[in-house]
């Protein structure tokens, strides 16, 4: 995987809570056998009327050219529901590197990290500030820095820290994934199996 370290970008705010993975990518688009191309169906039924790409819903933020960027910002309990990793693939494939929310569903969080899509959990108050500031000025730049574990809005003088475990941080900064690590301790795994018998 391609390492990530610092992201500086405008944001796309989806001001909705409990966004489930069925909304992020509906089940009917899970028939592919490869990981590519899910971005075009991201939020499919919120983006298009009658499942028709020629009928974009004007009131949905992804169809608003004013909002662009590598950072998706959404309400609490983001990514709940189905374990489909296709949701993380779709968000990453669309061009996002970071999702900011006040609360993430567990499986989605793991799936995102495994695809180098960084889930940044902030307080509800900080989240509401991001919504308010970017609604007023969509050109607002948000900075996410993994080494220092901070998210900031320099123009507003706002900054907050976020959690990420040391192991995952090393993975993201160096482009390692869990399989690389697990394969490196295969002997220990085999030893564990022997000891159990």
């Amino acid at each position, binding site marked *: 995987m391609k390492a990530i370290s610092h992201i500086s970008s405008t944001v796309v705010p989806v*001001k*909705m*809570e*409990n966004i*489930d993975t*069925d*909304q992020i990518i*509906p*089940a*009917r688009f*899970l*028939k*592919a*056998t*490869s*990981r590519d191309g899910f971005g075009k169906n991201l939020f499919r*039924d919120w983006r298009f009327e*009658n*499942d028709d790409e020629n009928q974009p819903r004007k009131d949905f933020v992804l169809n608003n050219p004013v909002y662009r960027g590598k950072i998706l910002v959404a*309400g*609490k*309990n983001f990514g*709940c*529901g*189905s*374990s*489909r*990793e*296709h949701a*993380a693939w779709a968000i990453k494939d669309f061009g996002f590197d970071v999702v900011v929310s006040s*609360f*993430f*569903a*567990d*499986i989605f969080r*793991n*799936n995102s990290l*495994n*695809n180098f899509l960084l889930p940044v959990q902030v307080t*509800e108050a900080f989240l509401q500030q991001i919504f308010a500031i970017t609604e007023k000025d969509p050109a607002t730049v948000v900075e996410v820095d993994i080494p220092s574990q901070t998210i900031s809005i320099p123009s507003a003088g706002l900054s907050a820290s976020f959690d990420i*475990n*040391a*192991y*995952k941080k090393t993975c993201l900064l160096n482009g390692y*994934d*869990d*399989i690389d*690590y*697990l*394969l490196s*301790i*295969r002997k*220990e*795994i085999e030893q*564990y*199996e022997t000891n159990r018998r």
Partner: protein
Amino acid sequence: MKTLFDKIWEKHVVQQIAGGPSVFYIDKHFIHEVTSPQAFQGLEKRGLPVFRPQQVVATADHNVPTLNQHLPIREELSRRQVATLIENCSKNNIELYGLGHPFQGIVHVIGPELGITQPGMTIVCGDSHTSTHGAFGAIAFGIGTSEVEMVLATQCLMQSKPKLMRINVDGMLQNGVGAKDIILYIISQISASGATGYFVEYAGSAIRALSMEARMTICNMSIEMGARGGLIAPDQTTFNYIKGRLFAPHGELFDEKVAEWSQLFTDADATFDKEIFIDAAAIEPMITYGTNPGMGIPVTGHIPALSEVEASERPSFEKALHYMGLQPGAAIKDQKVDYVFIGSCTNSRIEDLRQVAAFVKGKHKADSVEVWVVPGSKQVENQARAEGIDKIFEAAGFQLRQPGCSACLGMNEDKIPAGKYCISTSNRNFEGRQGPNARTLLASPLTAALAAITGKVDDIRNYLEPVVINERWRMENEILVNQ
């Protein structure tokens, strides 16, 4: 002073990484056609074999038709996905119970029914309802495709230990109230995110009194309140269910295992990060009105008024009601329904079908309603036919289909048309879940069966001869256990 979860967890930690997750060993890995192809592709790219193919079991369920399963799948992408699973399993020596196999079915139905799922195990699958298997006192949870690849490659996952919650349900359930109502009630109380970050143990006299299949219904929906999984300590009910099943231990080995499994309980002095107490007698038949499973109310209740909803939640609440075509403050009783779906890994087992059949016997569905009953597995379907349940459904105007996930997620052709109301025994009422713009009301099999007959939401308690149904149900379960 250990919890049930701790006892199983500790036995499966291969290595603890300082400041990070544990390397966690997986005993059983179920795979299906939708979330596995990219994992096999990943292995191929890295030139890796499947590490322990004998610990992997596959089936085709999410994306299969529920009519004419003997014919080639019509839809090209679905056909290719199922073919890819067959190819991947045969290349890697993985046991596959695919279409046409007598063991085929929904992955969370077949694991327990074949005796593969056992107490004390760690079980994963690329499906969030893997929590179902926790009913046996196993640590079972859903994973993403990258994790499927990890388990195929190394039989391990990187896991951080979750926080632990215990939900105690004590007392006697009202007649007509079952496992589905218990779990819908719990989720309505703690919300769709109330258990995120936790693994839940269900305990209490009302849980102990449930059959294994009912316990599976409870654990199944743990994910709908955000929990990674749910589990119930194994007991005599568990051991009776497992005994004699195909892949269960037999003879002396079974007795040895029972002795071992009997140690799997939460010690009296163990503590939880959070504990909740629920009075079983207070639970009424439940139904959802919104677009997440936390939006549940008793069938006799009212949808919250706007003033009862917190300001920050109002946009989502209003969006949900707009989608559902329902009004704030309105009663849900008498809401008309167009479709009834009885199926899914939550409620498609033989007890569910028996319960529905016992209620609809001699009755006929409302003309305005279409009713699909989709059994959880080939074995459930065959058992239903052997008991004459198919005849009862036929006489009632219900369609008994072939096994699969079906209209729970609308991945195959079984979609609810836009704008129509479906009362569904499945687990999710998300927007578009059962088809674009379909409107889902989650409920128990009995409440769904009643809606099939009356064409609207109603209170099952007013239609039951109390003792008769309960006695009959108990007797049938005992017969099943003795077989």
